[in-house]
């Protein structure tokens, strides 16, 4: 966000007053909830990884792929059943940061805009929230890769 306007002394005074009257989010409670929820998601992910490694006779590295795919499916299903947003309201970053949160952001957009049709609605809107993550994830990966290649 840009700050493209001048702040008058009157606005500055009111900003301070409004800040005084605006409640602070319960950061500690949010952090604890995120830690527990994120931890639980990770435990499920690890369980799936171990399960796939044993059932499909994969190395732990390879078993990660079907495990992630399953987590995405679970996140998408919970979004479709209207549960994910309620859980995330409590868990916060614990459900937003893992791959399930990524799935939630895409499926929520797709569901929301299906009435605008498959092209402009689902197709066009699906990555409105996730797009930024993808773009900057890819850009970051590119520069990290470049750095790694040069340092080697």
């Amino acid at each position, binding site marked *: *966000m*840009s*700050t*493209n*306007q001048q*702040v*008058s002394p*009157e*606005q*500055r005074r*009111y*900003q301070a*007053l*409004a800040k005084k*009257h*605006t*409640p602070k*989010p*319960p950061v500690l409670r*949010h952090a604890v909830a995120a830690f527990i929820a994120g931890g639980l998601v990770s435990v499920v992910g690890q369980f799936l990884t171990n399960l796939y490694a044993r059932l499909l006779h994969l190395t732990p590295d390879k078993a990660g792929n079907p495990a992630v795919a399953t987590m995405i499916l679970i996140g998408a299903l919970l*979004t*479709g059943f*209207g549960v*994910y*947003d*309620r*859980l*995330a*309201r409590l*868990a*916060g970053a614990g*459900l*937003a940061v893992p791959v399930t*949160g990524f799935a*939630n*952001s895409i*499926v*929520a*957009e797709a*569901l*929301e*805009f299906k*009435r605008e049709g498959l092209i402009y609605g689902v197709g066009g809107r699906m990555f409105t*929230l996730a797009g930024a993550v993808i773009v900057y994830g890819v850009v970051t990966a590119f520069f990290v890769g470049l750095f790694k290649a040069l340092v080697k």
Partner: protein
Amino acid sequence: MASGATLRARPAPRRIGKQTVQFENPPAIIATGTVVGPLEGKGPLGHLFDHVTEDELVGQKSFERAEQMMLQNAAYTALNKAGLTPEDMDYMLSGDLLNQLITSSFSALAVGVPVFGLYGACATSAEGLGLGAMLLDGGFANYVMVATASHNRTAERQYRYPNEYGFQRKPHAQRTATAAGAAILARNGEGPRVTIATTGKVVDRGIKDPYNVGAAMAPAAASTILTHLQDTGRRPQDYDLIATGDLALYGHRLLVELGRTEGGIDLEPVLDDCGLMLYGQDQEVGAGASGSGCSAAVTFASILKDMRDGRYKRVLVAATGALHSPCSFQQGEYIPTICHAVSLEV
């Protein structure tokens, strides 16, 4: 040039003070219709609304359609109660929150009344009542319908995130109410009367957070209420109730403080807020309600009833609106806000 000078020299007969008009023949609000969603129906005022919908989709194919159906339902309910038909209406003044006022336009198409579209965000109810009273007192109409609606799901997807997206709400966030209200104003008739209207100026005190509209709108409410009191020579205690649009919990507290520091008056004894009345404290709606339907439904269903029952004689409805758009706040602009006030008397 000469005629311009004479026009300027002669004051408009019904203007008082800087931003206020006083009606010669105050129009009466003869009937109202209100329709709210399920959560609003479970709130403390639930039993006062004409219709409570079973779900948020009301059997429609989209939430936008549902919002239109609710507005039309409110309009027809008001007409039925007044024993009038759409043909009797000279004008409909209607506003909502959706881009290009689609709720109002599609509803006006269905009802078939000449229409002026209003955009005052959550201040639309008082804006409509004030303008409607001007049309009637000016002799331009016999009946005017004032209508507005908002819908939680349509507002969420336009202003914020898709409905199923999981995120943590800030404690000061307000919930856009699923509610529609319509009122019929008449030149002659029985009911609480619109006696005075004060039109607000757009106010910007440097609040950028679109989740903190209560704090953004409180200075607009202070500006309009203080100007109204100055223009009319009234004091806060001349009103049984001053009901702000939807400042919710924290905006309400800020307005009380602004009244003290900027106006040197104590508004608290008579001040209440539609955004605080609509939901119960156990309904997990953050700081309270917002949305253009909120002040309309609360005013039309609850405050007017209390006036007809004799609980209040004189009420100032000061509806507040945040006039930002997703575009303006993404570009880093502050939230422009407004407050329109109408004095209702029995």
